[in-house]
């Protein structure tokens, strides 16, 4: 059976899932299995988790491109809220009873979800649909913060994340913390008890603009901190990487209005002496002042949207020549680190959609067979194993996790190269090989052949340590797959 005739991974998973669901008819756990089905073909589901006030809702707004998740000073998000693509609409799902449509009102550029007479505590979840470009790549889930003073809300998130199959991937947000800090440990406690691996989890160092008290070098400091976290073995075993993001800047880059820009322009045009005093503190920025052409209310709005760091940055950027709203928005977006995060999410999550979905489904089936061992259970588990063994994509991500958790003994550089080849930095051919996008097919083929030979040697060498040998076999297979990829096929000879 050639590759062209082999059913796709998704198809095989779907048929196994159907079989499993049928086997468990009438049993309570069937519900778990039945839940997965509709999601298999759906968009990737990514949860945003972290402590209270880590910046989850702000990041969500930045990714979605609209100010919809509430972000007040006090603790906000109380209910797990799903954001999917579609015409603007919101629905509340009470713990008991029918789903209830909720109002979505817009005011001053901000969307608000009206609960009406419903209480947040009575809701199991809220589902929101928005016509957002980003939501075409993935569905986002905003969660109540953990470590909440209203413990119930935090526990719900814990339960939610711990539930297999609820989401396919997680973004863990954390602020700048010491490794002995309880919050630091707790964030990763959540990571380790939920069903995430370094494949489907990414760390975000949030509120990056506040590091160092908001001084101009804050984002540079943030990059240093993120690098430190990346190097920490505990974190390496839990998330793929850690990126710094200034959520507020990113959110505003998406939502800045013309009026806002006009105000910032006016402020930038005012003499240095007047603005210097304003920029000293948040309090001074919003204080009434005759020398400033922008009224305090408008300044307050700017401060709430950008933060003091953002305001200083924006005025600086305008002062350096940005003349249009779009130029400023681009600068803010660039500065915020969101571009890097988007890129990472696309390669790490979106490109792997099928594989991550398959993984969630298989894991759920596996757990269900263990919880409820009916006579058919061993057969189902074997089927899962066969599928896993037969699906090279799954073998790749399993090996990627093992590389991260220190299960394969090799030199760090060798480990990094293996990770790249397995698609750890992007599943595209050029990403796996670390080549420039314009590399010729010939060069690429040569490199692949070389790698293939190398890994075959390692796999066949009797002195190679067993774990490394197994890894080498997977890599060998990867190379074979790459060699057969369409872009490398020699051009079909034209008709004579």
């Amino acid at each position, binding site marked *: 059976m050639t590759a062209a005739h082999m059913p796709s991974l998704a198809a095989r998973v779907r048929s196994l899932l159907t079989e499993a669901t049928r086997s468990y008819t009438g049993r309570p756990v069937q519900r778990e299995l039945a839940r997965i089905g509709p999601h298999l073909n759906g968009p990737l589901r990514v949860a945003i988790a972290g402590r209270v006030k880590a910046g989850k809702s702000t990041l969500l707004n930045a990714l979605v491109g609209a100010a919809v998740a509430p972000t007040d000073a006090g603790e906000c998000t109380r209910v797990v809220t799903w954001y999917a693509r579609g015409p603007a609409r919101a629905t509340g799902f009470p713990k008991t009873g029918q789903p209830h449509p909720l109002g979505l009102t817009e005011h001053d550029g901000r969307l608000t979800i009206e609960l009406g007479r419903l209480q947040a505590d009575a809701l199991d979840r809220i589902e929101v649909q928005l016509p957002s470009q980003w939501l075409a790549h993935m569905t986002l889930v905003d969660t109540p913060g953990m470590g909440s003073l209203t413990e119930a809300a935090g526990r719900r998130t814990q339960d939610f994340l711990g539930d297999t199959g609820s989401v396919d991937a997680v973004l863990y947000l954390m602020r700048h913390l010491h490794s002995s800090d309880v919050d630091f440990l707790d964030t990763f406690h959540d990571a380790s008890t939920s069903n995430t691996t370094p494949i489907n989890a990414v760390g975000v160092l949030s509120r990056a603009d506040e590091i160092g008290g908001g001084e101009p070098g804050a984002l540079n400091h943030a990059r240093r901190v993120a690098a430190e976290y990346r190097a920490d073995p505990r974190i390496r075993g839990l998330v793929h990487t850690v990126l710094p993001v200034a959520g507020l800047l990113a959110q505003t880059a998406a939502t800045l209005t013309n009026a806002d820009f006009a105000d910032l322009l006016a402020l930038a045009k005012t003499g240095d002496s007047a603005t210097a005093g304003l920029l000293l503190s948040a309090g001074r920025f919003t204080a009434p002042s005759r020398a400033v052409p922008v009224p305090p209310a408008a300044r307050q709005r700017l401060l709430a949207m950008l933060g003091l760091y953002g305001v200083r940055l924006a005025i600086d950027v305008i002062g350096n020549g940005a003349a249009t709203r779009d130029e400023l928005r681009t600068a803010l977006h660039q500065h915020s680190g969101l571009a890097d995060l988007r890129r990472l999410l696309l390669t790490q999550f979106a490109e792997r959609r099928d594989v991550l979905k398959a993984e969630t489904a298989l894991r759920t089936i596996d757990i269900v067979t263990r919880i409820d061992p009916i006579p058919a259970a061993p057969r189902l588990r074997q089927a899962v194993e066969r599928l896993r063994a037969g699906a090279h994509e799954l073998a790749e991500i399993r090996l990627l996790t*093992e590389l991260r958790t*220190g299960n394969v003994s090799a030199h760090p550089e060798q480990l990094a190269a293996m990770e790249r080849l397995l698609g750890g930095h992007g599943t595209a051919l050029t990403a796996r090989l670390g080549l420039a996008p314009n590399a010729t097919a010939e060069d690429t083929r040569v490199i692949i052949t070389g790698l293939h030979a190398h890994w075959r040697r390692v796999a066949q060498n009797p002195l190679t340590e067993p774990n490394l040998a197994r890894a080498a076999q997977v890599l060998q297979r990867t190379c074979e797959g790459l060699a057969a990829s369409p872009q490398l096929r020699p051009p079909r000879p034209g008709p004579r």
Partner: protein
Amino acid sequence: MTPSPRTDTAAPAPSTTAELLELLDAAAAQCREHGRADLADKLARQRRQLTSRAWHVLVAGEFKKGKSALVNGLVGVPVCGVDPVAFTAVPTFVRHGQAAAATLMPDGEQYQPRPVDIRQAAGHGISGVAGGDPTGALRLRAVEVSLPRRLLAAGLVLVDTPGLGGGFAAAAAAASMRALSLADAVIVVTDASQELTAAEVEFVRNAAKLCPNLLCALTKTDLYPQWRQIRELDRGHLRKAGLDVEVVAVSSTLRELALDTGDHALNAESGFPVLVERLNGRLLAPRDATSLRAAVTAVRRSLQQVAGTLATEHTALTKPAERTETLRRAETTQQRTQHLASPSSRWLNTISDRFADIGSMVDADLAERIRRLETEASGKVRAGDPTQQWAQLVPWLYRRTNEELTDTHTKLLDKINELAAEVAALFEATAGAVDALGGSAEPPRAGELKLNQLGRRGGKLEVGMHAARGWSLSSSVVTTLLVTTLHPGLLIALPVTAALGTVFAIKAVRGYRTTRLDHARNEALRTIAGYLNQARIDAHRASADLIRHSRSRIRDYYLDQAAELVSAARHTQQAAVTAATTATADEQAAATRGAATQAKLDRVSTLLATADRLGAGADGGSGGNTAS
């Protein structure tokens, strides 16, 4: 929920302090006049203590909340390390000094403190090493800084700490609690970026039990526009937790700018004037009240001794019938005071015996608790799957360990307090029987009241407050104990990485292979045993330090008192003999001298009355707040 009492002790009015200084001078003069130079010296020391007794203010709070910047803002010089990325590694002690100076305290008994340029002190606070040492970086225990600042001149010692916070699930919680029990006041620092977390509130609650003299500082108000909202939310959380703690909003950035430019408006906006006022006022008040009571007590005791001598002399001169009796009594008194001061005296032996008992009790208690914990933890590990539960087990274990250690420490403080009260009663009973206190100015009932007043403040060692007993750990001892307690090595973390390495290797393949359960369990048990052992060793060392210092301080204090009484008795006896001889020889001269002695006695009595008045004023101001 019983609210944790804020210290209501009002600071004595400045006029009271002035009067007291006068009183001390007058009393010292009287003592010297009557041949008691030893008492005069003691009163001179009290006079110095009155205005500058060292007072340790711990600046606590989680990492990156702005503690170091706060201390720098208070003293106006960047002596504590402030870095956007790195964390404070070792504590910095900032006290008054005639000239600006800094000293590094290396870790290890064999190393001497080494002076450095004060401009480099901050860097060492962050790095935690001495650096520039040819034999390699020398780890530090602490950094000491002295500055000529008016704020510090009254005896204030500011202690900048590495992150001290989090609830009992934090690794360093037990050490934090020990440090808090030594502090005279605490500033808990939180910032305006978000409201108080559950862990922060728990920390404030625990801190308030150990050191009720506490306030909260809300920092970085320059950066966060909603700081007022945050402050309200924080106040709400504290109120809901039953805590009556003030929240003072500040900005160290604005303060620094204000000090650079001399801008008063900016300084006011920084909120630091309010903080300084609180430091000099409410937080310092208990110290001042304590000093006042201590000074009054010292004056009373000294003058009573002098009065006793004069009274005996007067009796010998003017009452021939009682002469023999007077002489005999003076003789007996002298013998008894000799006994009081001898090494075989009961109170002295009580101290040695009882402290030895306390030491054994603490050891046994610690061992028992740790043993129980280990059993509990092993049970959990054996019952479940450590690979799945490790991440929950670690915080649980920290929390339980810290609870047990803090409990032991609190018990220790209680026991030391009890012992001190017992010794005081024993000593005073003996001294009273000796009649060396003389006069009727000190009714035993008032003495009892003072002992009862000490009450239970959650086991806080009464080192600064309520020194009615007179003794307290000296400031250098407190500093030493704080340095040991805040040792960076005490931020011991359960060696999670090693175990997690195994755990996650297993977790990663959890779904794919059978777990190597036994291996994981053994690893977990080994790790836990190692952690608990280390915890026990640290706790034991901390207790031993505290016991050692308390014992020697109490003993020295009462030895000094006994020596005074010996001197008093001797003087009395001499005076009685001289008076008797004079009187027998010349009745007329005796009568004249008797009148003169009466006059002297009257002068002393007037001073005693003043002391009583000032003392009653202090007691009245603070009365009724210790009932809770």
